């Protein structure tokens, strides 16, 4: 059993809702109330509610949660920027917070001076910074700009410089708050490589993010926080699953705003995964889906099985017309299966939906068939989620584009 390097014990954080500076006047006015009647204090906001967990030495620990869930507050408490209202945090080692890159950067100073300022704030001595100065500049690829003022840098250059300083941190614990959200794809790749290296060195990392892919790729364990409460703690894939399920009906992607059509001909009962446990599957695995429908009348229909991205947008679909046209189910309940071939979906999280339409061979090409029923995030129905875990190294994006280059 490894020792705990971070221990969070029943931490509660309450903020006074009235932000900013209070006026002395209000204090005096407040006195009056104290004399008349003791006012119930409802001007506070509980950002964290009785949170306990511990991080072991050498662990890559994820904290996930939606915006405003309290995860950044938690990170700031770990960093010692905020102090908990109740409970305690014990840290056994040195700690560097990456809560934001380039802390203390001053636009009026040269790049060089900013390296020294930022470095000192991150806990380096002047001597150490002088020693690693050349490496920092080289990594940031800014050899010709170090005497320029920071305000003349592009934002990408600033981030590169800040990151180059930050990754020199020699402390036992690193706190990382969505650093990956900045920078272009190439820079993000660089960040990932650095994280892998940090992980190899056996450092303890606490990582706050929305990116379930990153959580599953790097973390050994993770917790999920919602409305200041610890919802779950455990293996990253379980936490990621809970996160996706909790967020599939979330407001920030405006789901469930449509209502399902009502008809007396046919109803979709459900769509489910066969085989893949918990919805996790490998890139090189087939996935089979089972659609259950009930026909009340014998009519010609077509089904479209489709894949949604995490935010609910339509990625691609496969229609029954391609295999059986038309589909004329007898009255009663039917189960149909659809197999999606392996090596198509790249690493990521997807939802599966299905829609039933009328089938009419006489329809003109630009005429739309009638929608009978649909199971889709946008219609507020529960649909299965699949998480593709492996990635083929040579492809990117949502799915594996089959194409060929020629010289």
């Amino acid at each position, binding site marked *: 059993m490894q020792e705990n390097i971070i221990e969070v014990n029943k931490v509660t954080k309450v903020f006074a809702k009235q932000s900013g500076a209070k006026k*002395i006047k209000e204090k005096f006015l407040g006195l009056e109330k104290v004399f008349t009647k003791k006012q119930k204090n409802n001007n506070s906001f509980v950002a964290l509610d009785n949170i306990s967990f511990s991080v072991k030495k050498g662990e890559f620990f994820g904290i996930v949660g939606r915006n405003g869930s309290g995860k950044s507050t938690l990170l700031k408490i770990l*960093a010692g920027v905020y102090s908990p209202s109740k409970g305690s945090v014990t840290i056994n080692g040195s700690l560097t917070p990456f809560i934001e890159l380039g802390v203390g950067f001053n636009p009026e100073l040269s790049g060089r001076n900013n390296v020294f*300022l930022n470095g000192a*704030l991150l806990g*380096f001595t*002047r001597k150490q910074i002088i020693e690693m100065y050349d490496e920092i500049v080289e990594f940031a690829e800014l050899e010709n700009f170090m005497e320029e003022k920071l305000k003349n840098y592009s934002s990408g250059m600033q981030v590169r410089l800040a990151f180059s300083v930050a990754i020199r941190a020699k402390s036992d614990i690193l706190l990382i708050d969505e650093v990956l959200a900045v920078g272009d794809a190439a820079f993000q790749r660089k960040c990932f490589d650095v994280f892998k290296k940090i992980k190899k060195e056996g450092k303890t990392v606490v990582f706050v993010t929305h990116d379930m892919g990153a959580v599953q790729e790097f973390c050994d364990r993770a917790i999920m926080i919602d409305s200041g409460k610890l919802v779950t703690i455990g293996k990253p894939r379980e936490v990621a699953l809970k996160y996706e399920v909790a967020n599939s009906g979330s407001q920030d992607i405006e789901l469930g705003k449509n209502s399902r059509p009502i008809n007396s001909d046919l109803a979709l009962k459900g769509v489910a995964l066969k085989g893949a446990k918990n919805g996790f599957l490998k890139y090189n695995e087939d996935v089979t889906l089972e659609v259950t429908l009930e026909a009340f009348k014998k009519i010609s229909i077509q089904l479209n099985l489709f894949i949604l991205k995490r935010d609910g947008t339509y990625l691609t679909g496969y229609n029954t017309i391609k295999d059986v046209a038309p589909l004329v189910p007898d009255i009663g309940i039917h189960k149909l299966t659809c197999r999606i071939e392996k090596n198509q979906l790249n690493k990521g999280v997807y939802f599966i939906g299905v829609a039933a339409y009328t089938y009419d061979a006489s329809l003109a090409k630009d005429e739309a068939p009638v929608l009978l029923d649909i199971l889709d995030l946008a219609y507020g129905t529960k649909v299965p989620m699949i998480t593709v875990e492996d990635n083929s190294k040579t492809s990117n994006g949502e799915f594996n584009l089959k194409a060929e280059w020629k010289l």
Partner: protein
Amino acid sequence: MIKFKNIASVKNRSILREMVATDFRVRYQGSVLGYAWSVLRPLFLFAILYVVFVKFLKVGNGIPHFPVYLLSGIILWTFFVEATSSAMSSIVGRGDLIKKINIPRYLVVLSSLFSALINLFLNLIILFIFAILSHVPLQGSWLLIPLLIIELFMLSLSLGFILSALFVKYRDASYIWEVLLQGGFYATPILYPLARIPFKFQKYLMLNPLAQIVQDFRWCFVTHQTTNSWNVSVKYFTIFPILIIIILIIVATKYFKAQSPYFAENI
């Protein structure tokens, strides 16, 4: 919290050095004369006061080397104003740091004090040159000056701690302090010699630590004719200013220590 060992740690020294250097580098950014302004500014200010108080109002008649006498008061007062005002806004002004990183909060206040101290030293150099040019005699009592500077620094530092913590919660503090400084300017014998006010009030004026520092400085530096803290009429009044400073240091340490964990959320 404010242990000397901690302040002097290599890490904290690096932070302090970089923050003071940044202050200094940024201050005269974009001006043609640059750093020269830190010397030119007090020189011009002094030229004006010299014309008004020495040539026209002639308040210093009878005091040897009155221009130097006047200038020393102004320089010490300027430091006090600059140090306390910049310390007061230091925590709020450095909110970006406070909210993101757990550096010891007192370093932020200290760095603004040190910036002011650098200016004080530049001004003192001018004062010394000026004194030599005005044939102020070299005296053994000059050696006491560092003690007075330390006393002034401790006074400004403790007020800086209190004000900076207050300012986080109550922005009114800056307006109140501005008014108090205006009052303090006239309650301290800076523009006028202490001898100009009725004798029975002199001793009460000397209870003010700033008045004591200014008068003692003049006694040490310019002329032994100055009323100082140990030749003031009531003897035990001598220790009063020191007592005030000690109390201020204790209050400042306690208050700042109690408030600093909440700076990040209150800014």
